[in-house]
């Protein structure tokens, strides 16, 4: 089979899914959404939309293996060590450590210390710091940074990790336009390298800029649209959006 594109870890074939969701039901005590069946392939960017509290974050956390599914199956076909990247809403940074330490954690996930590759890790970290424009903050403890800088650090961590699949939960929210531009440029760098992304997002322009598909959670169901279907059928993220695509 013809290789589709070069991934950070090697060649990724078009038909090989990175993630398969089978009849998935998500939630904590009560079911938030059920009957979710979908798959994601290399290079795809999925924007997960829906009103607050509908289960977007729970879906991402279930995929990340942090919440047990109520029913159904999540099959992650990426490398267990470093294949999955995650930027949660609260960013999950180590507050009492330096920016470099935090970004280096991403590199260490895919290039464990025991397997060597110290130079490669340094290269990745420095390149990620430059891409996000925070190279001057390298030694600064994360707790001293502003909200926008924190989001840059979290994105740099993902950039240094170079995962096959990145889960990003509202990672572009509360950012000024300049920072959004910088972060999106870095994310595009990841996309060029073959990373797929599932992002929870609220802003139309960010969805339009990055997404290739849109998942909308509504009424305990997940609706899957191509980006063109979504653009033609709907004005952007709105509560109570009528499903315009096929139910999966």
């Amino acid at each position, binding site marked *: 089979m013809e290789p589709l594109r070069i991934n950070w870890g090697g060649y990724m074939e078009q038909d090989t899914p990175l993630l398969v969701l089978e009849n998935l039901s998500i939630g904590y005590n009560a079911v938030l959404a059920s009957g979710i069946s979908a798959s994601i392939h290399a290079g795809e960017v999925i924007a997960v939309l829906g009103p607050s509290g509908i289960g977007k974050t729970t879906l991402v956390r279930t995929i*990340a293996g*942090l919440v047990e599914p109520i029913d159904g199956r999540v099959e992650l076909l990426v490398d267990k060590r470093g*294949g999955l990247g995650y930027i949660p809403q609260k960013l*999950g940074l*180590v507050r009492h*450590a330096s920016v470099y330490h935090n970004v280096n*954690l991403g590199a260490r996930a895919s290039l464990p210390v025991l397997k060597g590759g110290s130079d490669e890790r340094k290269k990745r970290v420095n390149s990620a710091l430059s891409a996000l424009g925070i190279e001057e903050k390298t030694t600064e403890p994360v707790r001293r940074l502003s909200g926008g800088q924190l989001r840059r650090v979290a994105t740099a961590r993902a950039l240094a*990790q170079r995962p096959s699949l990145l889960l990003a939960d509202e990672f572009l929210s509360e950012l000024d336009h300049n920072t959004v531009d910088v972060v999106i440029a870095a994310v595009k760098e990841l996309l060029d390298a073959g990373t797929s992304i599932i992002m929870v997002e609220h802003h139309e322009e960010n969805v339009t800029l990055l997404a290739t598909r849109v998942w909308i959670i509504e009424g305990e169901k997940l609706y899957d649209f191509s980006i063109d279907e979504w653009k033609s059928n709907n004005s952007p993220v709105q509560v109570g959006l009528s499903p315009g695509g096929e139910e999966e």
Partner: protein
Amino acid sequence: MRKSFILAILVLLYLSCITLYNLVDDWGRLEGGWENLTIFVTESMWPPNWSVLEAQSYPVCEKDIEFFCSVGYLGMVETIKIAFVSTILGFIGALCLSSFAARNLMPMYIALPCRLILAATRSLPSLIWAILFVIVIGFGPLAGVLAMTFYTIGYLGKLQYETFEGMPSDALEVSKAMGLSHATTFTSVVIPETGNHLLSQLMFMFEYNVRHGTVIGIVGAGGIGYYINTYMKFLQYDKVLALLIIIFVVVVVIDLMSLMVRSFVTDEGDVRRPTWLKAMIKLYRSRNSSSQ
């Protein structure tokens, strides 16, 4: 919320009073107690006998300054040495065990046995550990070091795994999602995030071990407690008081050290790290205001 809190405190106070009433059968013993204490302190203990800071008659002091040959100095230094070594060894041992005992870092089937080991180690007081080690390896500081190390492992281990379990989960969740190993997660996420608490516990344990050096010394495990025990046997309570004051001063110094050390990892450290002088003035002022 506030009403229920006050109610809970009152209920607990009432239960304590009932329990105390059931425990004590003869309240008449309180009569004359204060007078006895006054007589004991004024006639036997006060004033403290500072000859404990003079050179001992034997062995002959070969140092220029007599103080370095005194019971107070030698006993305190030995106690600090025992406490220092056992605190460090115990801290490392406790970290190893507590990293496997925290339920947010390990599954229950691994965490539970580790918790049982820590509980077993902790259930023997340091005095009993000291007696055990004196029986096994004889009198001296080594018995003290081993006794305190074991107790430190049990005690600090519990504090540590409870600290780990109380840390914010988001950084841990990212580590788990990214597939970081347990060792990397522990050393690069958990320890930096809980560093302030760990240092605080470490300094507290050091202080605790210095104070308990007096107790385990009594059973022959070395340190200043050995001298306290000797003076008590000969009813020289004024010397005992002098040694207790020395221990108090050392404990206060350790408290100040703790303040300094923790300022490196707390948010306060971002603003201003206190100098030794400022820390001491602060302590002096807070004591004055509390006594007024």
